[in-house]
């Protein structure tokens, strides 16, 4: 809000005065609220990782084989892209707090471009899988195929989790565009940047989720020798 908020004063019986925290202009409250919201993200992805681990326990070999098949080069590139985008986001906020609005805006644009790049690479990956006959409700993932159970579920969750992560990236891009609009409108300023702060936090949690998604899907079967184990058991 653009108006000036003047906190109320409460007085105790000895005449000491205490400033009352109102719901207006509560930077810490806004931050706390957003952290709490991020816990819900953690629980959501936590539950999906729980499902993933559930089936990893039941079909350990299938999981390694399926993981081995994923494209580590593209996945790794995406990891680095997201890592750098976390830096640009953080630096942008830093510039904003230091008073450099123009630099902050540049950094946000950089983050948006990196995010779009991430999504494109993700798209290429999915396309590759599709052409290899692996996609939701398609080819090897259909109930009738003789693909081992463990691999079916691995890919089912792979598409679900990377897909949901992608949705978070898209939401992130939308939020950043909104942020740019708010900065241009003078509603997010060097003094009043809780909105920016929280979007930066959001981008970090998106990155954080990827930090676990990446090794769990791409790397656990990294050194797995194909044919070294019989599929299924």
């Amino acid at each position, binding site marked *: 809000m653009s108006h000036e908020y003047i906190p109320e004063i409460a007085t105790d019986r000895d005449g000491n005065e205490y400033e009352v925290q109102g719901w207006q*202009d*509560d*930077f*810490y409250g806004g*931050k*706390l609220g957003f*952290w*709490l919201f991020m*816990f819900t993200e*953690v*629980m959501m992805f*936590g*539950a999906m990782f*729980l499902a993933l*681990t*559930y089936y990893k*326990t*039941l*079909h350990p070999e299938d999981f390694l084989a399926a993981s081995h098949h994923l494209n*580590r080069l593209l996945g*790794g590139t995406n*990891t*680095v892209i997201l*890592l*750098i985008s*976390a*830096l640009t986001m*953080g*630096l942008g906020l*830093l*510039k904003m*707090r*230091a008073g450099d609005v123009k630099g902050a805006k540049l950094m946000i644009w950089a983050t948006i471009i990196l995010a779009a790049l991430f999504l494109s690479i993700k798209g290429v990956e999915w396309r590759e899988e599709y052409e290899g006959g692996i996609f939701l409700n398609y080819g090897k993932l259909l*109930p*009738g*195929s*003789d693909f*081992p*159970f463990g691999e079916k579920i691995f890919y089912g969750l792979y598409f679900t989790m990377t897909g949901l992560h992608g949705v978070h990236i898209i939401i992130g891009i939308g939020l950043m565009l909104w942020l740019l609009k708010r900065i241009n409108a003078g509603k997010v300023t060097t*003094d009043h*940047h*809780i909105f920016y702060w929280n979007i930066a*936090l959001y981008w*970090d949690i998106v*990155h*954080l989720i990827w*930090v*676990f998604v*990446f*090794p*769990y899907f791409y*790397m*656990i*079967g*990294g*050194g*797995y020798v194909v044919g070294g184990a019989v*599929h*299924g*058991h």
Partner: protein
Amino acid sequence: MGTKTTVNYQVEKKRYYNVLVGLLLLTTLTFVQPYVFQAGTFTAQMFIAVVKAWLILMYYMHLKGEKLIGSMTIFALSLVTIFFVIVIAIDVTHFQFADESYITSGSLGSEMDISAHTTHGGE
């Protein structure tokens, strides 16, 4: 109110880059690890991920020095851990019907009668 904190731009910026270097090193480690040793890949990978997550939480998300939010984070994370301990370590690891259940049979499902095997609890 608390918004008007001044920042030391250069110092903070340096910290961001230091953490970036750390994260990149850890990412490299992620790639090298499976080719160095294979047994325990999963544990090693998850360990690296946890270290990376810790760096991001502490420095990029500014959790360092946040007492209240920090303890709330610990509470939420320990809850997830407990879910894992109960569901994975206590329940699935001791799955009792691996030999007779359809879902762990590993056989090809197409020709089998599925309805008779809907849950592994059926005796």
